[in-house]
């Protein structure tokens, strides 16, 4: 049972990785700072490194939400199994929909649901739940968004250039931000490692403790850290292109200076809270930053419809994952047969969703998609280039070498760039 739960936890870590690649890499890919594949590889490596850096969050997860140990309720590996099931399924569903929902909340939701159904409502440490999950969930995106707004304003104010005599606009030359994005997005990936990989470590540690294989209250062991780091890195490398699309173009049209500001804010927020052991949602912080930077630049429209859809996804994450977790817990309670049924059903559901995603990936090439792409044409093109190169393996010819001249970024450029891109690969 313990082995089963650990492998399930690692699979969750994997889904976490590809679900959250977007957080770090959506904006640099959108602005053309890094090629999609390079970006994803970079993110994977940095996630790996980040996972080793700080294990504060793992301690929060393993010691916080559900009362464990001798004084609390004995949590069993079965409950954790059920919770993970809920988390993974919800992660897969939101990935299919391209929603940047929080993997962390899916995890907590699943666990809480499973614990309530399997043990009872008294097993939940509500105080800890509110302080360590609910409050950060509300404030982290607001903080990150506010800071990103301010930073975007600053970045634009500091780099706006006018002719001192005529007052007309000079060439802005903000191309430097594109290079800077490589660094800031790397930091976000690193931060993601320090926060999200930790959650799985916490879970595995919780399993080991509950099975009596580890001292209650101790931190994660080295092999746990290593396997979790690897799982999240592999997950990141496999890339969640769907969510990258939503984050990179769905919310607002991202320019390098904005991306730079947003990523700085995201990385700072996550690193700061990782340091204090807040298990906050990387996804929500990153979304908050992207929106904040969108408001910060004049003439940018934030697509509040998409933002609302994402917010709705956030609201549903805890309860939805909780319900799946609870159902699984009830099933698991019936005994070994229940566990097997749950495992088989879960695997089947994941496989089905994976196959389903394959089906609609082909659909990305159709004409409707291109029309819908609207203003964010540049990004769609890149994404399709990536998809095409994966499919055919030789589409690298013209598409990857996108002419990303730094001059492209001037304010009144919009129409010209778009026309150039519309006759791209189709």
């Amino acid at each position, binding site marked *: 049972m313990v082995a089963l739960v650990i492998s399930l936890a690692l699979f969750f870590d994997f889904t976490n990785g590809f679900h959250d690649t977007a957080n770090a890499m959506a904006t640099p890919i959108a602005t053309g700072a890094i090629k999609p594949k390079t970006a994803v590889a970079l993110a994977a490596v940095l996630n790996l490194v980040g996972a080793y850096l700080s294990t504060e969050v793992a301690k929060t997860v393993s010691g916080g939400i559900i009362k464990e140990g001798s004084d609390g309720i004995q949590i069993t590996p079965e409950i954790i199994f059920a919770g993970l099931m809920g988390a993974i399924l919800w992660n897969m569903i939101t990935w299919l929909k391209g929603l940047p929902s929080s993997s962390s909340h899916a995890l907590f939701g699943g666990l809480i649901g499973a614990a309530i159904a399997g043990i009872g409502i008294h097993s939940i440490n509500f105080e800890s739940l509110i302080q360590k999950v609910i409050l950060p969930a509300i404030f982290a995106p607001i903080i990150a968004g506010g800071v990103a707004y301010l930073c975007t304003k600053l970045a634009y104010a*500091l780099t706006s250039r006018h002719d001192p005599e005529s007052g007309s606009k000079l060439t802005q*030359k903000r191309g430097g931000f594109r290079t800077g994005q490589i660094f800031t997005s790397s930091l976000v990936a690193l931060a993601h490692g320090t926060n999200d990989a930790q959650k799985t470590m916490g879970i595995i540690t919780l399993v080991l403790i509950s099975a009596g294989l580890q001292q209650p209250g101790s931190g994660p062991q080295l092999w746990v850290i290593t396997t979790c780091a690897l799982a999240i890195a592999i997950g990141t490398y496999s890339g969640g292109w769907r969510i990258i699309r939503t984050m990179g173009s769905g919310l607002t049209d991202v320019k390098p200076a904005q991306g730079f500001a947003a990523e700085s804010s995201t990385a700072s927020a996550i690193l700061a809270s990782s340091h204090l052991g807040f298990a906050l949602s990387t996804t929500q912080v990153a979304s908050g930053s992207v929106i904040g930077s969108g408001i910060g630049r004049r003439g940018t429209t934030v697509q509040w419809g998409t933002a609302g859809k994402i917010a709705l996804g956030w609201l549903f994450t805890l309860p939805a994952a909780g319900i799946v977790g609870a159902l699984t817990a009830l099933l698991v309670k019936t005994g070994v047969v229940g566990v097997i049924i749950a495992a088989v059903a879960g695997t089947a559901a994941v496989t089905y969703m994976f196959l389903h995603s394959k089906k609609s990936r082909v659909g990305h090439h159709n004409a409707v998609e291109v029309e819908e792409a609207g203003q964010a044409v540049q990004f769609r093109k890149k994404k399709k280039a990536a998809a095409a190169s994966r499919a055919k393996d030789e589409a690298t010819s013209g598409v990857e070498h996108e002419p990303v001249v730094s001059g492209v970024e001037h304010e009144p450029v919009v129409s010209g760039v778009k026309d150039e891109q519309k006759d791209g690969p189709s």
Partner: protein
Amino acid sequence: MKWLELVQVAGATLIAAVTVVVLYSLGVRLTAIAGDVSGRKPVWVRPLAIVCFALCGLAVMFGLYLIIPYFSK
């Protein structure tokens, strides 16, 4: 109390992000001035731009130094 920690996170985020963004923006601005084809420009513009970028990098390194337990212990 968690509120205090929340404020800490907010403050740290603000300071870190603003430092990085301001330094980098200044660097970008100065590089842009240094790269201008026409007009007079002082000699120190490009070195100063590099200094800005370097300070920005240092700020990031310092932040990481603070966070990684291996160093701060």
